[in-house]
């Protein structure tokens, strides 16, 4: 079918989909008049039951823990797909480092300071995830993103430890697999999968939530290393050969 034919079909299709969506959302309760009891029940019971003041994190890692495990495996599978695709293709060898030292000394100092501060903020977000807004996903993503700044200010040689596949692959498996192992530990004690085993502690402090803390850190590790692997693959396959080609 030609492009014109497809575009002529697009108009009525969009109208039909729009009508369907409009009919669908018209059946929802009005904005702000949330009816369902599930959310209200969770708001009431998660803090007494699990001692985590961040109910969203308590929901993510305890009440809906299996969903989060599925999401982590989606992340793992997507990163696995990217590494399979990109590592089997052509890969630029480092060679001479063109365009490595970026900018002035002041800029590099600023960048390195930001990396330190950013990693600290990311770790804090992950650590206090079940007390205040934050969590393993947010903190892990921030740590991975801030480490990327090292590549921008220091070039490939400064970033080299985070490009090593031998280091990233086992850590990623540790994060994703650690989640399952913690759940299986409950199964080994005769309780349902992912039951909260450890002591609950006091709500509002760092020692609270029991297994939620362990699962939080496992997912933080998994997300950090998965994103670092992703960045490493993209940089090695798509950006480094360009630097090499520019100097060729």
């Amino acid at each position, binding site marked *: 079918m030609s492009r014109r034919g497809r575009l002529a079909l697009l108009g009525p299709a969009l109208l039909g989909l729009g009508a369907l969506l409009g009919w669908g959302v018209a059946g929802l309760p009005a904005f702000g008049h949330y009816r369902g009891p599930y959310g209200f029940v969770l708001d009431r019971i998660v803090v007494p039951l699990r001692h985590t003041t961040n109910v969203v994190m308590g929901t993510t890692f305890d009440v809906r823990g299996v969903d989060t495990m599925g999401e982590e495996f989606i992340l793992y599978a997507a990163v696995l797909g990217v590494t399979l695709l990109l590592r089997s293709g052509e890969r630029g060898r480092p060679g001479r480092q063109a365009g490595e030292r970026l900018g002035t000394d002041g800029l590099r100092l600023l960048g390195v300071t930001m990396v330190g501060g950013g990693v600290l903020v990311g770790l804090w977000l992950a650590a206090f995830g079940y007390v205040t*807004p934050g969590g393993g996903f947010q903190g892990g993503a921030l740590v991975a993103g801030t480490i*990327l700044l090292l590549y921008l200010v220091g070039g490939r040689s400064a970033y080299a430890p985070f490009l090593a596949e031998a280091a990233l692959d086992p850590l990623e498996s540790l994060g994703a697999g650690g989640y399952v192992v913690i759940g299986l530990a409950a199964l080994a004690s005769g309780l349902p999968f992912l039951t909260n085993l450890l002591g609950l502690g006091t709500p509002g402090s760092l020692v609270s939530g029991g297994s939620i803390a362990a699962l939080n850190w496992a997912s933080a590790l998994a997300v950090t290393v998965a994103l670092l692997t992703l960045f490493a693959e*993209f940089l090695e396959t798509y950006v480094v050969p360009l630097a090499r*080609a520019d100097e060729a």
Partner: protein
Amino acid sequence: MTVLATLVPLQAVAFGLVALGAPLVVLTRDPLRQALVNGVYGVSLVCLFVVLEAPDPALSMLVVSGIAYPLVLLAAIARVRGEARRRRRLGRARSRPDRSGRR
């Protein structure tokens, strides 16, 4: 059926910005400019999430749309342009699909 208008003006503005940003992202055809517009659209989404009393998704969206998406998109765009430049430089002879058996 009468329902109260429960939309606070701040929320209406946030929704309006997001509704305005989405067509802008789609209508920007050049991928490089679109990556930039997508970053701004991500910030407007963060504002919307905060106004909807959702700090956790706001944190995720902030990191992802500010750092991860630009990197991934820029690497892809750089590669596409580099490939195009290489093909132009090497001329027509090398523009056939690459079947050197590397895969």
